[in-house]
């Protein structure tokens, strides 16, 4: 039995294919169209799903769509009614796509795929909840979903047990923690639905002290937080409910100046505001989780929604809430809802027992060594071939030790926004200059942006002050922990300004070659760790194909590319060198 899950039309369109209840393929549309956060109908991702399984659309038994489009449309119309006539511009901008595509999902499926079978529509936050709980290792768990907005819900709490799933508390639009964070992201001059993680990274440079940070005190007047974590925003400070601009004039006045223009320098006020909104988010999420722990009475918790990608907050959950175990899927945002909707159909609606645990994020397309070699030969690229994996690993480790920057393209592409050792750029964490080299010459991005350390799972507690045992979401780079003080100067490339690191743990049964590489680097440098950042430049989706990987390497400061069994040196192919810097923008 094949079930296809689809999420699209807002941001991060994606498709997931289930075969007999197990995920066989999942990918985001952006990787194929090369448009970051592409929200269009994921026709390329769907075609990749079908091609991977060698089936046609006629063999799909059911399609699961990740929300109820008419309920969302009702909310949109209600907003226009509430704020008439201020919404004239957004009405003109939004309505055509609603009428032509967004409410006509069945017709779109028929037109674009020729599909005429069953289509199930699953509530947005139920899809999130299903994406969080059904592929988790837990038999029962509390569920928290927090994002910008679904149909009406922005935050919900519920419980999962076996194949039963229920959400029983919610907070409704316009009160939204996700939109509060996005509003402050917009205020700080970053792009919404894209750069929230920059605010998270920037917050470490600000004053993370609730008593001393004046902006935190001011922002507390914007949101009323109850002891149970429920909250209400003072909507006079926001404009997103009727305009395409998010902060209102009143919020700008409260924060002491107009919206920052992206090209303007960041000053201490901006850093402190980023710290304030991060602390506020943590206050709310941790209070909600403490409440959920009391209400649900489970030791396990699963999270979903865009806010669940806030890895700084995630790293504090187990220590602060009473839960003993946590699980977050690698694609916790809207893209992951395609998986949630499909699993919900299989397990809840059709009543099949759960038979799938998401143990690794390698669910996208792969390219065999033969395919890679054909590409290299056809393109006239000079390369070296390694017959034995140990030789390739050993050579790559020596390059990393010599402070070379390595493009690492191996196996199936990752599911979700993080590169986890399949489409990654790797380098030496012990190099003091590496962070600025990577930011300037490879990623072409802001100097304050940190890089993540990847370590083998059994070494994590040696280097990090982390929960013990190390929670599974660290496999998906979803938790930030303090680096032990004695190692901070030893691994400057991955030590953030506040001494923390967004840890990725690697297990050998998940990615053998990547694991072996980290160990081999450890033998040479004394620190079994690599810098891991996504294989792309700023504003571009992570690479998907060998051609994209090669082009990215040649346009940036990446020194060499390890693609399956092949090593390609940048200096061996001087005619293909170009400069990608002009293309790097959000």
């Amino acid at each position: 039995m094949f079930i296809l899950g689809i999420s699209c039309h807002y941001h991060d369109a994606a498709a997931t294919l289930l075969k007999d209840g197990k995920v066989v393929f999942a990918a985001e549309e952006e990787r194929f169209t090369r448009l970051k956060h592409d929200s269009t109908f994921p026709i390329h991702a769907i075609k990749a799903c079908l091609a991977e399984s060698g089936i046609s659309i006629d063999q799909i038994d059911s399609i699961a769509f990740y929300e109820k489009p008419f309920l969302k449309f009702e909310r949109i119309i209600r907003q226009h009614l509430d704020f008439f006539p201020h919404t004239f511009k957004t009405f003109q901008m939004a309505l055509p796509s609603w009428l032509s595509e967004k409410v006509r999902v069945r017709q779109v499926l028929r037109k674009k795929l020729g599909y005429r079978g069953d289509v199930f529509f699953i509530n947005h936050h139920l899809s999130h909840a299903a994406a969080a709980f059904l592929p988790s290792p837990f038999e029962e768990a509390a569920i928290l979903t927090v994002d910008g907005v679904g149909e009406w819900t922005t935050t919900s709490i519920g419980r999962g047990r076996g194949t039963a799933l229920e959400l029983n508390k919610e907070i409704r639009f316009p009160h939204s923690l996700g939109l509060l964070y996005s509003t402050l992201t917009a205020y700080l001059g970053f792009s919404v639905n894209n750069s929230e993680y920059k605010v998270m990274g920037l917050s470490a440079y600000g004053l993370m002290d609730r008593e001393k940070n004046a902006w935190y005190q001011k922002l507390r007047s914007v949101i009323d937080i109850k002891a149970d974590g429920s909250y209400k925003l003072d909507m006079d400070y926001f404009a997103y409910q009727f305009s395409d601009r998010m902060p209102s004039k009143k919020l700008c006045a409260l924060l002491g100046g107009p919206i920052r223009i992206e090209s303007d320098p960041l000053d201490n006020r901006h850093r402190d505001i980023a710290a304030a909104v991060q602390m506020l988010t943590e206050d709310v999420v941790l209070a909600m989780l403490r409440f959920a722990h009391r209400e649900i009475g489970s030791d396990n918790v699963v999270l979903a929604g865009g806010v669940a990608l806030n890895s700084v907050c995630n790293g504090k959950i187990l220590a602060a809430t009473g839960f003993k175990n946590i699980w977050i899927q690698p694609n916790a945002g809207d893209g992951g809802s395609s998986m949630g909707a499909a699993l919900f159909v299989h397990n809840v609606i059709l009543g099949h027992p759960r038979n799938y645990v998401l143990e690794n994020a390698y669910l996208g397309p792969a390219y065999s060594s033969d395919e890679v070699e054909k590409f290299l030969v056809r393109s006239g690229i000079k390369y070296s071939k390694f017959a034995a994996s140990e030789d390739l690993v050993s050579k790559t480790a020596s390059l990393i030790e010599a402070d070379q920057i390595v493009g690492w393209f191996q196996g199936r592409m990752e599911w979700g926004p993080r590169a986890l050792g399949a489409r990654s750029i790797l380098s030496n964490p012990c190099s003091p200059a590496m962070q600025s080299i990577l930011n300037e010459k490879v990623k072409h991005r802001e100097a304050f942006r940190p890089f993540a350390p990847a370590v083998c799972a059994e070494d994590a507690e040696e280097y990090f002050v982390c929960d013990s045992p190390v929670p599974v979401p660290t496999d998906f780079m979803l938790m930030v922990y303090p680096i032990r003080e004695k190692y901070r100067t030893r691994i400057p490339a991955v030590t953030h300004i506040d001494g923390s690191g967004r840890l990725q743990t690697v297990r050998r049964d998940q990615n053998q070659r990547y694991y072996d590489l980290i160990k081999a680097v450890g033998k040479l440098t004394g620190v079994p760790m690599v810098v891991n950042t996504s294989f792309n430049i700023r504003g571009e989706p992570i690479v998907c194909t060998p051609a994209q990987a090669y082009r990215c390497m040649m346009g940036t400061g990446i020194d060499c590319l390890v693609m399956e069994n092949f090593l390609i040196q940048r200096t061996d192919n001087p005619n293909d060198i170009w400069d990608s810097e002009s293309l790097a923008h959000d």
Partner: protein
Amino acid sequence: MRNFIIGLKAGASNFFAGIAAFNNFLLLTLAYFFGIGLSKLCHFIYGVITRNRTANKPETYWSEIHLGAEPSDSYYRPF
């Protein structure tokens, strides 16, 4: 000749796209003022409050819901 045909096609495409955009603008403007605007006016006249701006301070902002397994028919509906 080939360039002429390509140019003609592009010109026609732009022309009809422009016409479509203008029609959309006109129809949406009518829909906005006569649909949304009149509804708003009716709400105003009959005193229906659409926006929740009450000043009361409840003990919690959580609302109760029961969103979970429902009869399968309900999932066929996009609403």
